[in-house]
């Protein structure tokens, strides 16, 4: 076994920004190589160059010692490099076999211009059997779970006989059980002689499955280590450049006040296709409590947040806040009542990228008199307000008068949190508060949420990162297919047990009480 893939001084620039700076990566044949780094470190850029979806600015790539000259994904596949993207490249309305064979359709024996659907089905069924996957070739992709869709992506590459399989953040959308299954499958593929490159920021998985690790930070390789000779803490330190707390300090004291501040009762709604996506959801939050909602993405969490933040209408059920009914109120009405909202997608719903920092800092408070003089915006006061937020929440900015688009993901998220917390709310609805945020900012955001809780605030925390929900919450409701399947105490429940709930089965012992 020798070196299969090597890059020499590989560089990619986007304008003035250097995304990859002289990367020298070596991948041995038949190994599982993990590439770790924070969001925006340049991992995906590197992989997209290997897969030729991006053209390198300079530098070279060698495959088995030969410089590669191909210049399209199709060429890359023909040379044996396949990629499974973080966002799946599937056609939702097509069937499983059509997706696997997309781009390499099998022609009819006699009528060469026609595609032979029957032959395609047989071929795919055989492929699925050979690799021991569990899939029906005639299923339409949009009806499948994310885990199954990922299998199609892997099969797509296996059908094309790739030797090197690149997986970009493959586990971010899976349940813990599905993650274990995937990692097993990767080991199985390695045993069959495939080389696997795994891009991830989840260090636990790296330790479990990889043979060697390359750490990337700010577009540069800052370390190559053998997995057996390192540990999670060391890798984390390499990624961030300083010591980090991998788990947040949560004493789980809460304030044990019996006062319920927020009650959701039988809340129900449907999506555009008429399917029920939030199904009789009920829970309550007390003062000084963090109520977490866990679940695999796409099980109704997103819609639940939209309902509770006034972006979507409920078809049934009620929401009460401080004894008052607030079902189907609009977002501005909710804010006036003292509810702060950290939305799921910070650029779609939280900020206006092409507007100034100061304009964004008063979003949601534009009707308040605090920022007006004689009914007209007082920009001096608004700027002052914005500066206060920046100072107090340590938001790193390039230019005060510039737009929000200058901010990194973490600092943009901090701006939202600063704005919402500054209103002194009594209830905080936080949806995916640390998605796509660097480790340093995650620490900060978690601390903010805990401080708010400790000062008597109530928090609804929705996150697809199970570890986040488990380390912050005082109680956790697990969502599955639009329902809250069970409610658990994070201190007395293991990740495996929650994983079972996330997959739709109710374990016997762990559940505190079942809904």
């Amino acid at each position, binding site marked *: 076994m020798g070196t299969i893939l090597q890059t020499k001084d590989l560089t990619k620039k986007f304008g003035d920004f250097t995304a990859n700076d002289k990367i020298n990566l070596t991948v041995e044949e038949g190994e599982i190589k993990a590439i770790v780094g924070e969001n925006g470190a340049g991992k995906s850029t590197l992989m997209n160059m290997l897969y030729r*979806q991006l053209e390198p600015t300079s530098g070279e790539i060698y495959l088995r010692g030969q410089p590669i000259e191909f210049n*399209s*994904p*199709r*060429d890359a*596949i023909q040379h044996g490099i396949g*990629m499974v*993207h973080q*966002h799946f*490249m*599937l*056609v*939702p*309305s*097509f069937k499983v076999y*059509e*997706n696997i064979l*997309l*781009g390499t*359709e099998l022609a009819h024996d006699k009528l060469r*211009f*026609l*595609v032979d*659907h029957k032959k395609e089905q047989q071929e795919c069924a055989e492929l699925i059997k050979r690799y021991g996957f569990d899939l029906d070739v005639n299923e339409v992709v949009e009806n499948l779970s994310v885990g199954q869709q990922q299998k199609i992506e892997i099969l797509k590459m296996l059908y094309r006989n790739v030797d090197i399989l690149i997986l970009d953040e493959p586990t971010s959308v899976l349940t813990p059980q599905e993650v274990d299954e995937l990692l097993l499958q990767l080991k199985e593929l390695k045993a069959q002689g495939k080389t696997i490159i795994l891009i991830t920021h989840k260090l636990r998985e790296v330790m479990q499955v990889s043979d060697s690790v390359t750490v990337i930070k700010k577009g540069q390789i800052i370390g190559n280590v053998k997995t057996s000779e390192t540990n999670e803490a060391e890798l984390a330190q390499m990624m961030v450049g300083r010591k980090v707390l991998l788990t947040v300090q949560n004493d789980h004291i809460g304030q044990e006040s019996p006062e319920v501040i927020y009650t959701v009762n039988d809340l129900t*709604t*449907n*999506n*555009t*296709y*008429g399917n029920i996506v939030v199904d009789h959801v009920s829970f309550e939050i007390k003062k000084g409590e963090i109520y977490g909602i866990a679940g695999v993405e796409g099980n109704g969490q997103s819609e639940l947040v*939209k309902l509770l933040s*006034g*972006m*979507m*209408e*409920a*078809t049934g059920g009620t929401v009460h806040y401080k004894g008052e009914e607030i079902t189907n109120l*609009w977002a501005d009405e909710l804010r006036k009542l003292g509810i702060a909202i950290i939305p799921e997608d910070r650029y779609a719903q939280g900020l206006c990228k092409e507007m100034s920092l100061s304009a964004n800092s008063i979003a949601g408070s534009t009707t308040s008199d605090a920022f007006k003089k004689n009914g007209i915006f007082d920009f001096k006061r608004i700027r002052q307000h914005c500066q206060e937020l920046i100072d107090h929440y340590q938001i790193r900015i390039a230019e005060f008068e510039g737009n929000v688009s200058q901010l990194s993901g973490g600092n943009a998220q901090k701006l939202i949190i600063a704005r919402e917390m500054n209103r002194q709310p009594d209830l905080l609805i936080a949806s995916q508060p640390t998605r796509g945020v660097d480790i340093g900012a995650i620490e900060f955001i978690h601390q903010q949420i805990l401080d708010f809780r400790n000062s008597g605030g109530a928090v609804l925390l929705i996150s697809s990162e199970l570890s986040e929900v488990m380390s912050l919450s005082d109680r956790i409701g697990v969502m599955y297919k639009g329902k809250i399947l069970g409610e658990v105490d994070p201190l007395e429940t293991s990740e495996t047990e929650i994983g079972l709930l996330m997959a739709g089965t109710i374990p016997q012992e762990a559940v505190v009480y079942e809904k």
Partner: protein
Amino acid sequence: MNLLSRILYDMVYHTTPILLCVLGGLFAYKAGVLNIALEGMMLAGSFIAVFVALHTQNTLLIYLSALLVCAVIGLVFAYLAVKKKGNVIIIGLAINMLVPAIASFILQYMGVPNLTAKWVNPVNFRFDIPLIKDIPFLGSILSGHPLGTYIGLLMIFVASVVLYKTRFGIYTRVIGESPNAATSLGIQANKYATWAILIGALCCAVAGLNLSYERLGIFTNGMTAGRGFIAIAAIYCGKGKPVQSAMYAFIFGLARSLAINLSVFAGPISALFDIIPYLLMIAILAINSAYEIRNYRMRTYW
């Protein structure tokens, strides 16, 4: 012929140009390009066919010139919209305004209000299909049409096969539905989008030619009268599926046929019947849309 078979024959007859536009235009729709230039392309086909018929009686030449001119317009549209990523609405509008402007300039230059190919006798273009013409009732509806009608009916089948059973059709649907999936497998979206637009342009040529040359031997400016837009409505309502979209084309054809046949009994207000197809278009679009959003619970604008 009794009134009923008269109405149904006219339905097929008046559906033809819309049907051709629909079956050609749905390829671009499936490829994710909104081609609102169907109207202009059809008018170009109408004009060129009669214009060439003024100089020659060679049917093949007439067909070829209409196809050629529309193909050029289609390529211009594809170049600007696909290659140069221009705004399809503006490019489409430009073509829709440019074609009648050029036609009217040429008419003015020739000093005539419209073009008339005197040798054309539409009855000569209609021919019967053996076997089918002998079927009672149905024969009198489906037989005795000009060539364009048969092309249109055949196209329902051809479009279905091409769209679902050939690589070209599969890739066209993929680039419209998930362009990233196409790119990741090396399917060149630009190439397929260009061909999809071109197919639409060629079908519009036949549609326009049917409207002016095959039916009347006369070209009048603006004679397409919004049929291209009705076709877009039909494609939209049928979600670009060949059979469903064709069905909507027939509904619009029926409306037109009713307008013509019933106006005989209407006397002085008969002109009012001409608005039936357009009213129907608005009604169908409104019902269709209301049905689509019946489960929409989001408060966002779109």
